């Protein structure tokens, strides 16, 4: 009796295993996101979105019958860990492509690994230097900082506000923004009259702002991610500074408006289109993707999807597009990614080429303003 049960179980197990063998093996995709640590505001929506999209693709039967398998690790925003985990993804998990990491610092650290092991990497961070100069195996979905800076400067130039004060956070995001703000100022005829920084965990920036108040600035540009910019917006209000305040795309989510409250009113910033998706004209090619992403994210996680999650959405969808064109190895994936043209995603419309692995144009950003606790598009 007992014997029969065991042999039955064996038979059942064998059947299950063979069934598995008949279906094509899933395509393994690695993901490195800073789900904890100081960059968790990037990593968490990115991981959530990547999981959500991969699940959805699999539920719909996979891509040409092949399912995707996402192996996701948390880097905690630490470059050392990111490198270790990239090695793990490639050597132990044998993934064909990697999505992430979330921050520019981590991405720069991981690039040598991906290049050496010849695995395509689609970074979700914004630093321009990730794909400039071009690296064979490295792509990115996050819009370049330079585009965001360009949007602000264009607006300032149009309004003849040429003296600006910049206040940037002293981490990778702020440093990259500061570099771009300085590099592009001459091109737009803009003069930086005051250049200050603040620490990511600082709780009061009135000292820097008092100094700025004493300068000839016609606009203040602050480059940082929550909560710093919200503190700055409040400090600006406290000091009674009337100079227009600009922020970066790092705070283009409802969270900033919630944190800064009244002080957020009138703040302008360049943003991915996701925060103003419903205000876009129907002719906008991204509108369909944007609305789908927002609805899905709301259903899954009960909060608003932001453009950080969008970077992961774009990355998974770009991989999907590459697989649809018949890629199941790392090198074919890379070649197919390079052939993608006019893919309307969350961050913008992607057109990769052998010369451009960032793939986005100036239209990826719109300038938005906070009015009545919501975003409006600045024309």
């Amino acid at each position, binding site marked *: 009796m007992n014997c029969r049960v065991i042999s039955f179980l064996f038979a059942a197990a064998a059947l299950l295993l063979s069934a598995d063998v008949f279906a094509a093996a899933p395509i393994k995709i690695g993901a490195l996101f800073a789900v*904890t640590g100081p960059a968790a505001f990037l990593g968490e929506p990115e991981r959530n979105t990547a999981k959500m999209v991969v699940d959805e693709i699999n539920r719909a039967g996979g891509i040409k019958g092949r399912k995707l398998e996402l192996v996701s690790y948390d880097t905690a925003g630490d470059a050392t860990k990111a490198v270790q985990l990239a090695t793990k993804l490639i050597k132990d998990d044998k993934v064909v492509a990697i999505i992430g990491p979330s921050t520019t610092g981590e991405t720069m650290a991981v690039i040598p690994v991906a290049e050496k092991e010849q695995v395509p990497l689609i970074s979700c961070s914004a630093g321009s230097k990730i794909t400039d100069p071009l690296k064979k195996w490295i792509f990115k979905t996050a819009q370049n900082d330079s585009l965001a800076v360009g949007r602000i400067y264009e607006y300032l130039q149009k309004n003849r506000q040429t003296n600006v004060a910049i206040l940037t956070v002293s981490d990778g995001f702020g440093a990259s923004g500061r570099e771009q703000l300085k590099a592009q100022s001459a091109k737009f005829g803009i003069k930086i009259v005051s250049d200050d920084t603040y620490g990511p965990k600082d709780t*009061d920036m009135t000292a820097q702002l008092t*100094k700025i108040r004493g300068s000839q600035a016609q606009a203040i540009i602050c480059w940082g991610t929550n909560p710093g910019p*919200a503190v700055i917006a409040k400090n600006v209000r406290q000091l009674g500074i009337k100079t227009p305040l600009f922020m970066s795309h790092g705070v283009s989510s409802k969270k900033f408006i919630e944190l800064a409250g009244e002080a957020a009113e009138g703040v302008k910033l360049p943003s991915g289109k996701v925060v103003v998706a419903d205000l876009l004209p129907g002719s906008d090619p991204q509108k369909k993707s944007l609305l789908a992403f927002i609805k899905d994210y709301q259903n899954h996680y009960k909060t608003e999807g932001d453009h950080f999650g969008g970077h992961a959405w774009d990355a998974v969808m770009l991989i999907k597009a590459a697989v649809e064109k018949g890629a199941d190895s790392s090198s074919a994936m890379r070649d197919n990614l390079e052939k993608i043209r006019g893919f309307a995603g969350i961050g913008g419309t992607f057109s990769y080429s052998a010369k451009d692995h960032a793939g986005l144009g100036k239209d990826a950003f719109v300038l938005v303003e906070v009015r009545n606790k919501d975003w409006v598009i600045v024309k």
Partner: protein
Amino acid sequence: MQFDQLLQYTLSGLSTGAIYALIGIGFSIIYNATGIINFAQGEFVMLGGLLTLSCLDLLKLPLWAAIPCAVAVSTVAGLLFERLAIRPLRQPTPINLVIITIGGSILIRGLAMLIWGKDTHSIPPFSGDEPIAIGGATILPQHLWILAITLVIIAINKIYFYHTISGKAMRACAYNRRAAGLVGIDVRRMVLFSFMISSALGAVAGIIVAPLTMTAYDVGVMLGLKGFCAAIIGGMSSGIATVVGGLLLGVLESLGAGLISSGYKDAIAFIILLLILFIRPQGLFGKADSERV
């Protein structure tokens, strides 16, 4: 250099410094009663802010009720910390105690991350946020709250430590635990008290600062570090010296950011602190005491 700018730097520095001072006093109270540098002190600051948020949002309490509620829960957390982590220690060498409080702070931060998530949260100010002009400078009503509450707490501290039996007993423990035990003071209870008082103090600091700076599961690290510095400048006293230490640190940072370089402001503050220590190795206010051999 205009006078109103200088005034603004000083006022901003004082209000930030008052928070450092409150946290620093928490460090000192525990250090004096037990010889422990409690690296988990910053986490109680975080707990204060986040618990207030929960009382407001989940329990729908009004602000005046939410604050004592949050302080009470933090105090219980401090009590549990002492009972579960500090007291059972078999070899309470100073360095083991440091590691255990580091472990505790990681644990508390991790729990807070699970409970409240990784987002930053804001708390409404106690009484509006219309700026108040003082000379050419402006401050917010919340800044006045911070300064006032700090003053009240220092006064209560003074009364407690110098005019109540339990406070005097705690001071006796600070001087000599063995002798205190011999004259009938329950040293273990005093240690427990010290943890409760400083977790309550930390929570208060976290609550009064949250409307200005927002709060999140990881705010305790930086604030704890600054509070620790304030306590050391003050020579680990639980009184006015630590307050001066905190205010000094706050003002140095603010002046450094405004007058010299915002990027190096923390470095400037620390360089000055190092110089002070090099010239006066026994602390800013300490008397050079003879070492027991």
